[in-house]
């Protein structure tokens, strides 16, 4: 990333190869929509390019990029809230948008995983995020703590609470 910062943009390609999959997963699971996940992943890399000069070489790239992904998601979420407040029809638009994106993804889903994702989506956003980071992104509690600005122990407790909450939803019927 230090090379990218010095305008050697080709060096971003290996970073893209390494992180775009995990970031796409993270954002797709947070938004529950593949298309939005792709858009937001794209935005993350746009911002990396735009703000490359603000990268501190001492900082791990992973932490920096996930912080950026969180911000991108937060911005998206706020925009959605405003849209929802302004216009209730937006939900219809969202639904058709999700349908289009499902064309290729439809071949990979099985009902079983749908249940799990539905349960995940019923969790409050912060709990969902912590589980996604912990279970799907392979983040340790230490890393989660750094990202969310709390101690590793607090991250552990939160993750366990989230897991219990998910269990209750998942096995509700």
């Amino acid at each position: 990333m230090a090379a990218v910062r010095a305008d050697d943009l080709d060096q971003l390609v290996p970073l893209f190869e390494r992180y775009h999959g995990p970031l796409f997963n993270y954002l797709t699971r947070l938004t529950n929509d593949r298309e939005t996940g792709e858009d937001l992943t794209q935005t993350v890399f746009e911002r990396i390019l735009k703000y490359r000069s603000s990268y501190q070489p001492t900082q791990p790239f992973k932490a920096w990029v996930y912080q950026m992904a969180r911000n991108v998601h937060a911005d998206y979420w706020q925009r959605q809230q405003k849209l929802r407040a302004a216009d209730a029809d937006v939900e219809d638009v969202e639904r058709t948008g999700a349908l289009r994106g499902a064309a290729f993804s439809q071949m990979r889903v099985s009902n079983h995983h749908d249940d799990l994702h539905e349960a995940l989506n019923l969790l409050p956003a912060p709990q969902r995020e912590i589980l996604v980071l912990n279970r799907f992104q392979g983040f340790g509690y230490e890393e989660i703590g750094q990202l969310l600005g709390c101690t590793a122990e607090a991250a552990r407790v939160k993750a366990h609470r989230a897991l219990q909450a998910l269990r209750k939803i998942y096995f509700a019927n």
Partner: protein
Amino acid sequence: MKTPELSACHELETLLPAYVERSLPAAEAQRVAAHLPTCLSCQLQVTQLRALTDDLDAALPEVPRTALRANFMALLEQEKQLLKPAVAPAAPVQPEAKEAKMVSMWPTALANGWMRIAASIVLIAAGVLLGRNLSWKDGESSSVATNAKPAPAELAQSMRQASASDRIQLVSNTSKQTEPGDPTVQVLLNTLNFDASPNVRLAACEALYRLREDPQVREGLVHSLSIQTDPNVQITLIDMVVAMRVRRAVPQLEKLSKRADALPVVRAQAEAGIGKLI
């Protein structure tokens, strides 16, 4: 009798996720282990937590469409172009500026007019220069666009010459217009097996999936499983043969699941695929 049991449950409940995760300190783990046989509700919770953990671990990662990569590459290219012109247009501006200085001796009204003309010349010159710099890109993309319905032979020909991103576009254009049974399938299969860029190969996968009615496609995909080495392509192929329920792919999947040079995630995916096919 019941009250202390319940409060014990309540207290232990918060420890259960850590117990299932095996991250509890030994003393607390022992307390939980001692409590479990006496309490059905906590037993149930532990079973459910284990099942949930297994399901979470088994959840497949979502794979982004290749468009994401193509978009990123386009973005990167654009950003690089932005870096370049910062140097380029500076050169032609200087001689024009001299001319503008010369006419500044004229009466002000006239000079203003000349200044305007000079400025417009500078703008046009910069525009032409930029246009020349960028024109190769437009030319190629328009050639891709005009080739909207290439014959398979032409397609094979242009596949050999075009750059990776153009090849992706060619591949995705093709499949929109071809009918099953078309020789294009063979070209796409060749692309899938022998193109140097994994992104082009992935685009060929997507294109072939749309032509899945053709028996050649099923045969070709099974064959390709043994050739591919890129994990993205491998996983996409596995997903496709599973989705198309190609039972003949099972021996290839078995080989893939044992290949030492395949990524663990690919091997796991192959095994999961076998499970779904048999």
